[in-house]
């Protein structure tokens, strides 16, 4: 009878994560007033499907909570409630709560309900407050204060206490006409109900049409069921009844009322605590007779007293999904590719069975096709790992919304290039640095509205997030139009910390670069947003670990711009194979500016040790790779060498090599897995013949070259 639902739970949680994202972005759009009907519908649908799924998987906390949200959203959707800033904020808080509950469900731990109850209280208050014509004030002074923070457990204890005096339940059940089509069987439900206690059932057949007009697939009946506690089975819990009707939730009108005494059934009929109702019906708790107020408060999940806002704890979601959702088009193209590969393979093997020299041309053609297939397949597989950067960007509207409210700043966030694709591993690691940079811009960059107006700027600050491709890199820019970096303050701080001496005449870029130094913060006041001076160095470190870099440019009073450059993928790179002596190395193609034959007359030396090469109108230092790596070169004569001009962190340089070999894509293998990191080497790869070749890390190599004492003077070239 029981189906193991646990296997689908993970899928549900993943889908709910997406649903929550939709909810959040929709709410933010509503907040900024840029929303149309479609947005609120989408938001409502997201909440609705989370509720449905949660119920199915027995996540009652989530289902109950979402139900209240849904009620509020439903009113907004139908235009019965204005979309207020307060409402949006509470709903956004609810999204956070749901995330926490989801995380708890993911880890199979009992959820932390205190925050959930608090936000639920706010939601309920909001619901109860405005609808004056339908709802009596349910903020009841007589309700015990303890209720507000009571956990679910004590709630249920309470109401089982309450109903121990009661005789049972009056259930009004009116299925919508189409209910049977959803596969629900009323007979089964009644059987289950009957198993709980003594049941009396009255069917209302007034809706039944004439026999000839009856559509056997429709349901015309409604029922009034009196379910009495019997002595052997004891008290019937309301939740048990609700569970029976769980599946038909949206396909019927249902009310479950306590049966206080059979004699005053009629009068108690007004006390309706509507538990699960179709979206078209009002879901406000209707509470009339004064003597039952307390009871109703405790039973209904939607009417609980309002609460003071307390400080919110933000918990960081710890789990990062190990799975990846891939667009069907990508999978389809992959399947096509494999299909072609199979055809090519069978063609080649057929050719191999009866090969003769006159088929040589065909063989060549076949091999070329195989090569093409393989390359395409590789590209397709790589594309699977590529995700649009919007996955990373989507959290920022919320972040900016929350922080700007907290800091009383007016900030507009603009994003471009959200569809720029990036490798999943890179994306995962770039998230935190990005958040840090945006927070910094918010906190330090954008000034308060008054300061902005005084400076003759619009009181609304702007933060731009841009992403685009450039070569083999993705560029992410974070631009604010705030105050810019305070050059003098930075310099003063650096001198105070002893990082630079007062006499140093640093160029501006170097001064601005100081913010990436560990323990460097000029914020006058440490806020909980930023200013502790940990961060920017970590940001740079993280980005460097990904093989990228981050730069800052700023103009006082105009704003600051952070530019992050990241490689698209960490797994494959386009490389130029070079040879020095008997060794083969790979230089990443992105680092190479050009390769040229050396004109010896352009080689000069400084102090007899450092060689420079005059390339057009600039001088670049020469790096003799064989010397840095201590290998035996073919020749040390400059005129027999080739020069590969590269650009790394430390500027340009010319690397002397014996020969240029082919260019090819190489798969990066880590040296660290089994050995350790080597300076000047970013990894290794396996060449077509099975041998290992080392991939040069150009920036590391250049800084290494500076450290190495030249063995002899090059004065004579």
């Amino acid at each position, binding site marked *: 009878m029981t189906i193991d639902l646990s296997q689908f739970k993970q899928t549900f949680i993943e889908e709910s994560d997406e649903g929550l994202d939709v909810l959040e972005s929709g709410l933010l759009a509503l907040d900024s007033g840029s929303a149309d009907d479609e947005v609120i519908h989408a938001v409502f649908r997201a909440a609705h499907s989370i509720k449905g799924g949660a119920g199915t998987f027995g996540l009652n906390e989530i289902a109950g909570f979402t139900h209240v949200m849904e009620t509020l959203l439903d009113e907004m959707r139908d235009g019965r409630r204005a979309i207020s800033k307060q409402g949006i904020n509470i709903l956004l808080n609810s999204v956070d709560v749901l995330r926490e509950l989801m995380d708890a469900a993911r880890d199979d731990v009992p959820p932390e309900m205190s925050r959930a109850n608090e936000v639920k209280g706010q939601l309920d208050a909001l619901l109860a407050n405005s609808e004056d014509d339908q709802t009596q004030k349910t903020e009841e002074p007589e309700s015990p204060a303890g209720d507000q923070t009571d956990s679910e457990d004590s709630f249920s204890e309470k109401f089982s206490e309450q109903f121990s005096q009661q005789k049972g339940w009056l259930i009004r059940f009116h299925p919508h006409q189409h209910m049977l089509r959803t596969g629900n069987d009323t007979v089964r439900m009644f059987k289950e109900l009957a198993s709980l206690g003594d049941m009396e059932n009255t069917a209302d057949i007034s809706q039944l049409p004439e026999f000839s007009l009856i559509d056997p697939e429709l349901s015309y009946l409604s029922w009034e069921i009196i379910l009495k506690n019997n002595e052997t089975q004891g008290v019937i819990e309301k939740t048990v009844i609700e569970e029976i009707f769980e599946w038909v939730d949206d396909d019927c009108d249902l009310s479950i009322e306590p049966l206080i005494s059979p004699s005053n059934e009629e009068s108690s009929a007004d006390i309706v605590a509507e538990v699960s109702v179709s979206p078209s019906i009002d879901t406000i708790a209707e509470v009339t007779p004064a003597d039952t107020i307390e009871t109703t408060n405790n039973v209904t999940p939607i009417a609980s007293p309002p609460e003071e806002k307390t400080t919110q704890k933000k918990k960081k979601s710890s789990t990062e999904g190990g799975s990846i959702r891939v667009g069907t088009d990508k999978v389809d193209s992959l399947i096509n590719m494999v299909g072609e590969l199979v055809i090519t393979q069978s063609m080649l093997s057929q050719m191999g069975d009866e090969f003769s020299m006159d088929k040589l041309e065909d063989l060549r053609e076949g091999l070329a096709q195989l090569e093409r297939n393989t390359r395409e397949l590789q590209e397709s597989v790589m594309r699977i790992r590529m995700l649009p950067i919007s996955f990373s960007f989507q959290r920022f509207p919320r972040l900016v919304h929350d922080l700007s409210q907290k800091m009383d700043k007016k900030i507009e966030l603009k994003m471009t290039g959200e569809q720029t694709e990036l490798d999943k591993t890179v994306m995962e690691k770039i998230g935190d640095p990005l958040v840090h940079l945006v927070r910094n811009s918010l906190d330090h960059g954008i000034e308060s509205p008054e300061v902005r107006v005084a400076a003759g700027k619009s009181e609304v600050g702007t933060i731009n997030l841009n992403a685009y491709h450039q070569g083999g890199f993705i560029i992410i820019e974070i631009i604010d139009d705030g105050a810019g970096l305070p050059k003098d303050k930075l310099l003063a701080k650096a001198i105070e910390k002893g990082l630079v001496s007062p006499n140093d005449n640093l160029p501006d870029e170097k001064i601005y670069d100081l913010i990436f130094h560990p323990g460097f913060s000029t914020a006058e006041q440490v806020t909980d947003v930023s200013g502790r001076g940990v961060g920017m160095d970590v940001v740079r470190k993280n980005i460097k670990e990904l093989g990228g870099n981050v730069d800052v440019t700023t103009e006082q009073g105009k704003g600051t711009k952070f530019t992050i450059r990241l490689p698209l993928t960490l797994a494959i790179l386009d490389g130029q194979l070079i040879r020095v002596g008997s060794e083969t190395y790979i230089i990443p193609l992105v680092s190479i500016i050009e390769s040229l034959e050396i004109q010896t007359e352009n080689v000069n030396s400084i102090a007899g040790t450092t060689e420079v090469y005059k390339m057009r109108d600039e001088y670049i230092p020469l790096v003799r790779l064989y010397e840095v*790596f201590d290998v035996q070169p073919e020749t040390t004569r400059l005129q027999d060498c080739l020069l590969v001009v590269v650009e790394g962190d430390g500027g340009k340089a010319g690397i002397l090599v014996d020969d240029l070999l082919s260019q090819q894509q190489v798969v990066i293998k880590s040296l660290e897995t*089994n050995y350790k990191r080597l300076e000047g080497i970013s990894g*290794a790869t396996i060449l077509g013949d099975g041998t*290992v070749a080392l991939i040069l890390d150009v920036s590391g190599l250049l800084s290494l070259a500076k450290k190495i004492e030249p063995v002899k003077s090059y004065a004579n070239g």
Partner: protein
Amino acid sequence: MSNIQDIVGDLDALTDDNADQYLTFILAGEEYAIDILRVQEIKGWDKVTTLPRTPDYLQGVINLRGTIVPIIDLRKRFNMPTIVYGPTTVVIVLKVLGEEHDRIMGIIVDGVSDVHNLKHESIKPAPEIKGSIDSRFVSGLTTIDNKMVVVMDIDTLLNSSDLSVEDNVA
């Protein structure tokens, strides 16, 4: 490679809790033993790709079915006279347990000889050792067929600071 067939040990050790199987190999006429469970495979000597700016005993790296595996010349490691690699020169690929993660490394030895069951009590503590083999690398001494065999602690040997700290880079 020819020795692989010879390495068919006595299976008794697998059922005896007090004994382990050890692989013995030859290095400059001396016999050494290592825990056989650590041995991933034994392969013939093949060309390696040298790594720049590493100690000279780190011969280089090889491609072992897609994994980059560093190869260490034990003769050089222990400052023994080097020899030209010949047909019996083999690489023993080992799994090295490290603090952070396990690693795969290879050692070059003159040749592998046999597999023996050694009872725990037959392994005697080693005296203080002079010279290039640090006593840290030796977990004990034992006697096989009246010959002394050095039981080697490969984890200490291959995790030793020389391999992981930049200072000692030549």
